[in-house]
Structure formats: structure tokens, C-alpha cells
């Protein structure tokens, strides 16, 4: 009851982000009409800034007042001087608010801090969204959460921004979970987010990167698909959009980009896993990123993460032509893959999409590359088929950790080779 009261009364204030540190809520028992009148006098003293939650009415009915910190002494002295009884219902309003915020997050994530969050297990969408909020709350100077759109089914699409300041600095984009069944990728994204906050100020490479550049991390790039993999079909890959004229659901968000759209390397059949969609950017999950990247205008590296196969790929996927920056991209890929394997010996192959994996048109990094984002890469994480999409949770942290070394190598190269 008290909680409901607090929220209903303070909702506006909370949204306005007021600070209630030291504020107290006093419950006054006025025993007769004279005492009620005395408390009414308090109401008239505007400089006290009292907030009556339950105003003076009749004797015997409690009077509840939120008293700002500077006024607490004065009010208490007044009440005591007139023999009016009172109790302190809430010692510190802000502390209570903080505790309740925490509990709200805890309810959603099961964890109260990113230090107690379990990175070695797979989480639901709610848990991951809850994690994001806690991380932002713990590192408000470094991390913020942006909403870049809403999914087909109306779920918010969030991107974490890691920034130490500046104004639209050159930035690195990382996305995980564009294919919802590739669970090790969203799980790795969560781990990366935490890792960035730990490494800033500790790891010289990451610190140098964040001192000049921003990092954008979209952990659940396909939230509808992700929810579907939890609730209905673990093997769901695509979005959950409805296609007019077909009973089949979803388009492949990695065939929906405006790069070679419509060419061989994607399917025109809505019932297939590589259905490209009715037209380029038909999927809101894709369009949201396109709009964000175009509006930002200063993304310098774009990394899209998938599983499985253990590959590091660069453009092109839709054509066999060699990318103009092929030689440099190949070098970067090689050093990234070397860094990755230095941890556990995990072997990755690397090369262009079309030569290394298969022809894929309308794919993410062909588009980002066409936007002038030179350092465009796609990862395919563990494993090579033994478990595939159902990678045991025990491999999440090793996978995320080794992949992080590769990401760091790519980011460092981007930092040292401005263009």
C-alpha cells in the first residue's frame, strides 16, 4: 500500500528526475481540532515546501507529510513544541526509491548488479533488457541506452552507447543476435557490454579507443525472433513479420539490406530461411539500423556477429568481385583471427563472404561497406557443427572472451587508421 502511494505521488517527480535525498515522510496524529488547526498553519508556510500526502482533516485521522530535508528540523521542533505526536514513516525517501528501482530491475533480471549477473547462461529478452538498465545505472558516465526503433511486434529496439564525451565522435558499431537462433551471439553481446565497462581505465587499448571513439552495441538485433526462440521455436532465424499473400512468417534480416538486393544469394520464397523480404529495408529491424547509421554519419567500423562456423568475413557476399580494400581487410582479419586463437587455440578461417561461406545478397556488411564504412566484418562464432546453434552454455564465456580479442584488434586498427 505504501509502495503504491509512493509511486502514485512521486511518479511525476521521478520522471522529472528530482532528488529526494534526506526527505522524510512524517505521520502526524492530531488528537483534537486545535491540533489539526496548528498543522494547517504549517500548510500555509510555503517556504517549507511541504508536500501533504494526506492532508489535515479531522482529529484521529493521520496526516502524512513529505518534508524536504532543509525543513525537517523546523517541522519537528514545531510539532514537539505544540505537543503534536508524530512518527517518521520514511527516513529517506530517495533511499526507498532507489531500493524499489533496484527491485524492479532485480525482478526483471534476477540480478541486482552486473557483478552478480550470470554470464555463463542463456537469458531471456526481459533479462537482457534488465541487464542493460542496470549497466547504465552503474556507469552513467560511460554507458547510455538508445532506442532506435520498435520491432514488427512492437518491442523496443535498444542500442547501448559507450562514450567518454565529444560530439558525434567516429564510432564503432557492433551487433549481435540478428539471427535469433544464434544464441551465443546475444550472450556474447551481454558479456562485451560488461567487459567494456571493466576495461575502460584498465586496459590501455580499450581506453585509447574510447578516449577518441564511441562504441555502439546492439545486443538483441531481432527481439521478436529472439522471444520466439524462447517461447515457441528454438530454431527460428528470421524476423516475425507477416508477408501479404503468404502464410509463412518472417524475412531473413541478413538478406534484407540494400546491397545486391534481388540478386542471386537470397530467396524470393517467403517460406524459406533466406527470404529477402518484399523489398530492401522492408524489415523494421533493418531499417532502424539503416536510419541510425545514416543519421550518425560517422561510423568507421561495422561488425555484425553470427554463429556458427568459426569464420571472420568481409565483403562481398553478393558478387565475386574483389573489394577495393580487400588487401587491408584481409590483413586486419588475419590479425584479428590470430588474436582470437591466442586464447584457447580456436581456429577461424577468414576471407570474403562469397569465397569463404556462400553467396549472400542483401547482407549487412555489403551494405555498410557500400556506405563507405571500410572496416566491415561479419563473424561466425563457435562451433563448427558439433552443437551448432545449441552451443552449450559453458562455452559462452570462452567464446565471448576469445571473440573480444578479435574485436579489440579490429577496433584498434580502426583507431590507428582514421579515414
Amino acid at each position: 500500500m505504501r509502495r503504491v502511494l509512493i509511486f502514485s505521488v512521486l511518479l511525476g517527480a521521478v520522471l522529472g528526475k528530482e532528488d529526494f535525498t534526506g526527505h522524510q515522510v512524517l505521520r502526524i496524529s492530531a488528537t483534537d481540532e486545535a491540533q489539526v488547526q496548528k498543522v494547517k498553519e504549517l500548510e500555509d508556510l510555503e517556504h517549507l515546501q511541504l508536500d501533504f500526502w494526506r492532508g489535515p482533516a479531522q482529529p484521529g485521522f493521520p496526516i502524512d507529510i513529505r518534508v524536504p530535508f532543509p525543513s525537517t528540523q523546523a517541522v519537528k521542533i514545531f510539532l514537539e513544541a505544540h505537543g503534536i505526536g508524530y512518527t517518521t514513516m520514511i527516513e529517506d525517501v530517495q533511499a526507498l526509491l532507489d531500493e524499489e528501482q533496484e527491485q524492479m530491475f532485480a525482478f526483471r533480471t534476477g540480478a541486482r548488479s552486473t557483478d552478480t549477473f550470470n554470464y555463463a547462461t542463456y537469458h531471456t529478452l526481459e533479462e537482457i533488457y534488465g541487464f542493460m538498465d542496470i549497466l547504465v545505472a552503474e556507469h552513467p558516465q560511460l554507458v547510455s541506452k538508445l532506442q532506435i526503433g520498435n520491432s514488427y511486434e512492437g518491442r523496443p529496439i535498444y542500442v547501448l552507447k559507450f562514450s567518454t564525451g565529444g560530439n558525434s565522435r567516429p564510432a564503432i558499431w557492433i551487433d549481435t543476435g540478428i539471427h535469433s537462433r544464434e544464441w551465443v551471439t546475444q550472450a556474447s553481446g551481454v558479456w562485451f557490454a560488461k567487459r567494456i565497462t571493466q576495461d575502460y581505465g584498465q586496459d590501455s587499448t580499450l581506453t585509447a579507443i574510447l578516449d577518441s571513439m564511441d562504441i555502439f552495441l546492439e545486443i538483441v538485433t531481432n527481439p521478436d525472433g529472439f522471444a520466439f526462440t524462447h517461447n515457441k521455436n528454438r530454431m527460428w532465424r528470421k524476423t516475425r513479420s507477416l508477408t501479404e499473400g503468404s502464410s509463412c512468417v518472417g524475412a531473413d534480416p541478413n538478406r534484407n539490406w540494400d546491397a545486391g538486393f534481388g540478386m542471386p544469394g537470397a530467396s524470393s520464397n517467403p517460406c524459406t530461411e533466406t527470404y529477402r523480404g518484399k523489398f530492401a529495408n522492408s524489415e523494421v529491424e533493418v531499417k532502424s539500423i539503416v536510419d541510425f547509421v545514416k543519421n550518425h554519419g560517422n561510423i568507421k567500423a561495422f561488425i555484425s556477429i553470427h554463429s556458427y562456423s568459426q569464420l571472420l568475413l568481409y565483403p562481398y557476399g553478393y558478387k565475386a568481385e574483389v573489394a577495393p580494400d580487400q588487401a587491408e581487410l584481409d590483413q586486419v582479419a588475419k590479425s584479428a583471427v590470430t588474436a582470437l586463437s591466442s586464447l584457447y587455440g580456436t581456429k577461424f578461417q577468414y576471407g570474403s563472404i562469397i569465397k569463404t561461406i556462400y553467396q549472400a545478397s542483401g547482407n549487412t556488411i555489403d551494405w555498410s561497406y557500400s556506405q563507405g564504412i571500410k572496416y566491415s566484418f561479419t563473424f561466425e562464432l563457435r562451433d563448427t557443427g558439433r552443437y551448432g546453434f545449441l552451443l552449450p552454455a559453458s562455452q559462452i564465456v570462452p567464446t565471448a572472451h576469445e571473440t573480444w580479442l578479435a574485436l579489440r584488434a579490429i577496433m584498434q586498427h580502426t583507431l590507428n587508421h582514421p579515414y
Partner: protein
Amino acid sequence: MPPRGQPPPASGPGGPRPAVLLLAPLLLLALQGVAAAPAGAGGTEDSPGLQDAELQRGLLQQAARAALHFFNFRAGSPSALRVLAAVLEGRATVNPKKECQVDLVFTTDHYNREDGEERLGKCSARVFFRNQKPRPAVNVTCTRLIEKNKRQQEDYLLYTHMKQLKTPLDVVSIPDSHGHIDPSLRPIWDLAFLGSSYVMWEKTTQFLHYYMAQISSVNQWKTNDDAVDFDYTVLLHEFSTQEIIPCRIHLVWYPGKPLKVKYHCQELQTPEEASGTEEGSAVAPTELNNF
């Protein structure tokens, strides 16, 4: 069997880089217009197609996979299953009918490799792909990876374990969504992989290759004349199209005896119903292999 989706120009992944890939004999063949490049391999008509080296590497990988599935099936031993480690060398020839013959040497790893275990077997194989038709012809020989006695022991252990499992099995997915397989259910997974090897062998072509993604249900479980009678539905993941294909598989197994497999895979969700029903036993119409 109708081709499914877009056939890719080459399928690369599946294992570590080959230590040595002898392409010299391939170059000569390449000049004779070797590679069976499917439609769309090079994008538009104007742009060049894939280099023959990439196509060759893809073909060798495909052949290795087909050979290994077939080998695992013929060996009939759920405790001695192998996975591809690396292709060492190979060459391919394509005839005017776009059928490919691939000769290759590759290394294998134990499927259930224990930590620290570093055992590589070596296989040589001849695989004949019949231009996107199923059932590549396979002739494969592999060096021994596990001692025969040890293998028989482990098979028998697995067998007794399975006979002790209570029926009906109240199990749904193996592994679960989090990739976990309960140790008590591991033998089911291994035996299912053995049966699925038959299916995956038959369905592998120059362009399509499969992985066993999940057992989505175990339907029936009884032991007649002491054999293990196992009826289950498996989800196969086809890599180039990314499709998940449910296959109902029925196998009968007794350690040391040839595996008997019947299966029915659900074809792509198109408005028209299409199904493929195949039946097979270890006495498949291919050459015998020695191991």
C-alpha cells in the same frame, strides 16, 4: 529430389584450414573447365565467376563430409563416430553430365573426444556426386582410431545403458535449448547421430551439407530380440540454405551388426506437399570398405 533454394558456388566452412592442399594436379584439370559452377555463382553474367581454387576447396569439403557420414553409418558404432578434422589433398573431375568424381585424403577426429585426447585418423576416399541427385557413391578407407576391443566394449556399454532406460522415454529435446545434454541421455544422442549419418550421407550433394541440430522428440523405444529399436525425430540443419529439416528416423541396432535405418524427411514448407521417403540398410548398393 528438387533442388532447394539457391545452390551456393562453394561451401567453405566445416573445419580448420587444410594443412596441405595439393592443387597442382587440379590446375591441369581446371584448364579443362573443371568446376561445375551453378547458376548465379558469379553474380551477373559480366562479372567473373569464382576462382577454381575456391570451387575446388568447396568440392573437397563436400566430398569429405559425404564420405565421413557414409563411413560412420557403415561402421555402425555409436562410440566410434568421427568428425572431419582437415582435408589434406584431393582432386576432382567433372564430366559433361556435371557429375563430379572426387578423390581425396582427409583427417578425422573422434566425435566424443575427451579433453587432452589428440587422436587423428586418416581416410582416403573416392566420392561420386551425381549432379545434385542424392546418394553420392562413396568408397572410403580409414586408419583405425580406436582399438577394436575398446570400441566393442564401449558399444556394448552404450547398448546396456540404453536397454536400461525406461520406456516410454519422457524426453523432449536433446540437447535442450541451452545446449545441455544430460549425461544419462548422451547414448541416445550418439545413436541418433549414427542413424542421422545415414540420412545425411544420402542427402549430401555438391552443394548441400548437413549437421544434426537437435533431437526434437523420441517417439518409441523398445527392444525386440535384444536389438535397440529407436524411433525419433531429428532436426537437420542444411547449411547453404540454412533450412531446418525435420526427419523421422527409425533405426534398429545391435552392437557389431549392420545398422538398419528407415527415414522420412519433411520437405520445405511450400504450399504443395512434398515428401521424401527413403529406406536403407547397411547393405546399401555401394562398394564395401575396409577398416
